[in-house]
């Protein structure tokens, strides 16, 4: 591979030198020597050399290429995929990445709490594009759906349970209030019992752990945790995606185990995305510092960074300029994706809208970027995608069929 690199670089250099020579620009003795050496390298080279002196043919070829591959359209496409430019009007719009870099962690937290991402885009001057009104159907108000599974296996569906105490685990009271579940009471001497909070497709829930750590679970996720924390470690197990706001406790490290990835924290805010059907597990740090470990590999992640751990391969990579907004967009009520292929796009939708996806297409190469409000009903979302040229769709009950 090294040899290839050198070879290509050599030809790039020669091309540049020939240009200078033919166009009458000054060349150093060394450069002249290099050109001579190249020309003596074979008959094909002499032909190439002569070919370059036929300017008309050269310009014609250049015009043909410029015509066949219009750079402007592709630049637009690439920029759209990278989230570098505002695209068409409608709820789907890409936002600039530039503002992310300058943003401090504290500000990121604030904007999350307010849920007002529009505030941020307006700063750039680009502003949200005029919204195309959502058609077909009423805006969906998703009840906070989740199931709480007690240590003895009892399942308590939380959307139908009444506010107040929903269970007792030893000396610990489990209270549901205002769409969240919290654990009160209990002391160190408690026998440890484990509970699991699980969300189905289309569900989201907030659970407040015994140490006051708050965890927002995204759809199709589950969190297993003890009813009482004790010792030098506060350990929980995650499957799926959750946003953590960890209560500070200098004498006890908060640890999240997501499959074979472990995230050790001291007291910060971060999002972990670890769905079984996604190939990369991501830990995005909004505030503070964490350490991501897998087997013997460890990586420290500081504010504004994102660690990516491959599901099938063992790498841990730290991205210093992640799209934090994309990772936590679900917290402020939207999907955000950039350079996503149709499959990952549909996967996200299937988790929220509880659909099965069938593909009747052969071309999966399209990459898309944008933001969609999660409160939109599914028919409106599909219409939005179609309106933006992202495939066509047919629904059959719970099934969505993706058409070319």
């Amino acid at each position, binding site marked *: 591979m090294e040899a290839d690199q050198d070879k290509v670089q050599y030809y790039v250099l020669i*091309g540049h030198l020939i*240009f200078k020579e033919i*166009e*009458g*620009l*000054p060349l150093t003795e060394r450069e002249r020597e290099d050109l001579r050496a190249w020309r003596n390298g074979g008959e094909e080279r002499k032909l*190439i050399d002569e070919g370059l002196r036929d300017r008309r043919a050269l310009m014609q070829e250049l015009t043909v290429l*410029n015509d066949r591959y219009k750079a402007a359209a*592709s630049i637009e496409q690439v920029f759209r995929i990278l989230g570098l430019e505002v695209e068409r009007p409608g709820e789907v719009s890409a936002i600039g*990445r530039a503002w992310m870099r300058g943003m401090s962690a504290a500000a990121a937290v604030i904007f999350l709490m307010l849920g007002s991402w529009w505030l941020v885009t307006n700063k750039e001057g680009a502003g949200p594009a005029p919204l195309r009104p959502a058609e077909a159907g009423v805006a969906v108000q998703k009840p906070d759906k989740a199931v709480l599974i007690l240590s003895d296996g009892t399942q308590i569906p939380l959307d139908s349970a009444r506010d107040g105490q929903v269970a007792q685990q030893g000396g610990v009271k489990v209270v549901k209030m205002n769409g969240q579940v919290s654990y009160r009471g209990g002391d160190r001497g408690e026998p440890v019992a484990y509970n699991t909070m699980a969300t189905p497709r289309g569900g989201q829930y907030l659970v407040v752990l015994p140490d006051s750590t708050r965890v927002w679970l995204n759809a199709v996720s589950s969190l297993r945790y003890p009813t009482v924390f004790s010792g030098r470690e506060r350990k929980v197990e995650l499957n799926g995606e959750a946003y953590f706001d960890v209560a500070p406790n200098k004498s006890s490290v908060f640890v999240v185990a997501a499959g074979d990835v472990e995230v050790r924290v001291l007291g910060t805010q971060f999002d972990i995305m670890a769905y079984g059907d996604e190939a990369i597990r991501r830990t995005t740090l909004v505030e503070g510092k964490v350490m991501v470990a897998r087997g013997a590999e460890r990586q420290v992640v500081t504010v504004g960074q994102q660690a990516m751990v491959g599901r099938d391969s063992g790498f841990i990579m730290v991205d210093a300029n992640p799209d934090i907004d994309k990772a936590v967009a679900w917290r402020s009520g939207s999907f955000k994706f950039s350079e996503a292929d149709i499959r990952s796009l549909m996967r996200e939708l299937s988790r929220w809208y509880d659909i099965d996806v069938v593909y009747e297409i052969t071309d999966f190469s399209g990459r898309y970027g944008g933001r969609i409000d999660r409160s939109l009903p599914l028919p409106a979302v599909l219409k939005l995608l179609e309106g933006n040229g992202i495939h066509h769709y047919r629904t059959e009950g719970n099934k969505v069929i993706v058409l070319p």
Partner: protein
Amino acid sequence: MFLRLSNGDATALGELMKSYFPLLCGYAEHFVRDSSLAKDIVQEVFIKLWQYKGRFEAAGNLKAFLYLSTRNGCLNSLRSLERESDRRVKATYLDAREMEAIDESIVRLEYMAEINKVVQQLPLKMREVFRLSFEEGLSIEEIAKKMGISAKTVRNQKYKTLVVLRRHFGQTGIPLLFLISGIN
């Protein structure tokens, strides 16, 4: 240029794509012979370039990256097409000699890139005047007739082009290529 890219300057990416995108597609054509596939592959290359946070030591490294990534993208495409047992594609198996020839074509492509760098800087009208005058060797009157504008406008455009070129090439002088096209 490459420093601006490493620092996340998006306009640098746009400029680079303006001159290199069509040429890298031309390079890809040697492998895949399908223009829309070539387009997809080269778009991926620039996406990868933007995501590559490393710093290139010299312009040469960045360009080498572009050609090599394009080649790899093409070979990957060919391989995955082969896996789907597309008989057409099996015929495009390239032997060492052909690969060498494709590499040598980089010399021509780089030469064209230097030209394209300037051509892309010219606004459309100027580009057309430049092309007609240089490529087809038309006189000012002929160009005026063809484009439906006055001879005075054509002369104006040529002069403006000269200004652009001077600005671009500065001290080193304007390449013969452009002078010979009759811009004076």
